[in-house]
């Protein structure tokens, strides 16, 4: 039901809301604008907002100087790989818990979630040593494994809450018709579950893309994804605002667009179904 409002009030709220939205978004906008400036203009005082010489030079420089494409590739492999691997492990589990719940299913779900509460520093030291001894430090494989494990509880949970909403009667009808478990999964449930799986995939790609504890601690030059590559701009000799902005813009743009598409699922996914 639409709430009653008057036009002047609506106009007033519009101005305030757009103003605050602009302020919250401004750091991102400023980064994008700066990425098109020369280094000189990037630190000019007073700063120029739109009236500057627009250039694409920074985007070219970032690629030439630091092999930017390699880090993009690392991010895609690590975020995509860990999400897919997580889904492969989690889909059967979530399925079984939603449709064949046992007495212990709820406890099991809660326990899985509790693994997510462990602060990463609690296991940093042994994992670092294990990775060193196995030669997994600074490898895409190593990070993919770690991110799969830290994402797994969220993936199971999200899938579980989606699968729970698939009506059980459909399953019973399929079973009456003699479908075995395999047929039930492939022909009956999968088509109904695709939207839930898709939004789980989307949210987890976003989380894995932005993960910045393990990626910073377990990679160096070779397997560094964008989070770790951008961090190299924190050194004083890396103080190039325009190039930092160009690298940042490219690093956040794809995920920002994905995020905007998945904002509805975000609330549900991140609150483990507690707020819908």
């Amino acid at each position, binding site marked *: 039901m639409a709430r009653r409002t008057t036009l002047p009030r609506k106009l007033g*709220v519009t101005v305030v809301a757009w103003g605050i939205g602009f302020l919250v978004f401004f750091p991102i906008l400023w980064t994008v604008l700066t990425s098109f400036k020369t280094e000189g203009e990037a630190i000019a005082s007073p700063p120029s907002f739109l009236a500057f010489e627009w250039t694409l030079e920074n985007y070219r420089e970032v690629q030439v100087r630091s092999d930017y494409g390699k880090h993009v590739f690392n991010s895609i492999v690590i975020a995509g790989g860990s999400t897919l691997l997580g889904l492969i492990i989690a889909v059967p589990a979530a399925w079984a818990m939603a449709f064949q719940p046992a007495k212990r299913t709820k406890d099991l779900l809660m326990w899985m979630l509790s693994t997510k509460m462990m602060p990463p520093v609690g296991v940093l030291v042994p994992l670092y040593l294990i990775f060193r001894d196995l030669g997994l430090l600074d490898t895409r494989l190593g990070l993919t494994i770690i991110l799969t494990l830290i994402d797994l509880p969220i993936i199971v949970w999200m899938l579980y809450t989606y699968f729970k909403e698939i009506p059980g009667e459909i399953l019973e009808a399929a079973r009456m018709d003699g479908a075995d478990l395999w047929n039930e999964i492939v022909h009956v449930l999968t088509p109904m579950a695709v939207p839930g799986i898709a939004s789980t995939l989307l949210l987890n790609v976003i989380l894995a893309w*932005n993960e910045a504890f393990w990626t910073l601690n377990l990679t160096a030059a070779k397997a560094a994804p964008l989070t770790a590559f951008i961090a190299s701009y924190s050194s004083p000799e890396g103080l190039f605002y325009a190039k930092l902005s160009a690298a940042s813009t490219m690093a956040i743009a794809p995920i920002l667009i994905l995020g905007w598409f998945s904002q509805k699922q975000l609330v549900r996914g991140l609150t483990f179904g507690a707020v819908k």
Partner: protein
Amino acid sequence: MSTQHSRAAARLLVAPSVVLLFLWMIVPLAMTVWFSFLRFNLLMPGTREWIGLLNYRFFLTDPAFFAAVANTLAIVLGVLAITIVGGILLALLLDQPFFGQGAVRLLMIAPFFVMPTVSALVWKNMFMNPVNGLFAWLQKSVGMAPHDWLAATPLLAVIVIVAWQWLPFSTLILLTALQSLDEEQREAAELDGAGALARFRYIVLPHLSRAITVVILIQTIFLLSVFAEILVTTNGGPGTDSTNLAYLVYAQALLQFDVGGASAGGIVAVVLANIVAFFLMRMIGRTLEG
């Protein structure tokens, strides 16, 4: 109707997730506990002797530990205060009818998708830098001396950056909860002569309480472990002014190579996080019932 056969199949489907998570949770944690009782430094290969609780004694009596606990709490409480109060106000605003609601929502949610290292460096250099930053320019243009955020108020700088990242999260969740509020209830109260403040206090706030609790608990889990934002801005300094527990353990392990001491610190962090997790699990457990 679940048969013996399908139940066994279900167990088989769940097993990989459970086994992997069990290994992930138990093996490294057990190793951390074990290391925390050893004199074990990567710079002194070969020395791994049992020293009991000595690592804990050193870690817990280190002045840096108290600074780190205080800073960890300041970050958690500071960010929570900003994001909860700001989130409620923004959610109330966005819940009003206005032109371009969808577009403003997209603008507001955007910071949440920015990777921590990017937001930290953008704020540090382009906003908080005392020479070239926008804040410095604003202050100079009104005749004030520029504030050196990272040197003078490093902890506040970290809090501002992290709060900017989390404000969209709380706003979005509180807005979602607000939109499920029964409109007729609000209108009935209005007809009964309840003012805006009374309606907020007695109808809106109780309705939001569950969402607020969820936001507090989930954010606390993440805020206890803030790391990247500190690493790329202040490196925990100056001194230990912006060192939190996560950063302190990292510094002890990977900068000083003190495996034993870092492990003891890690266990302390785990214990603190568990206290918070206990309440969060109870909250979420209740949603499973409903």
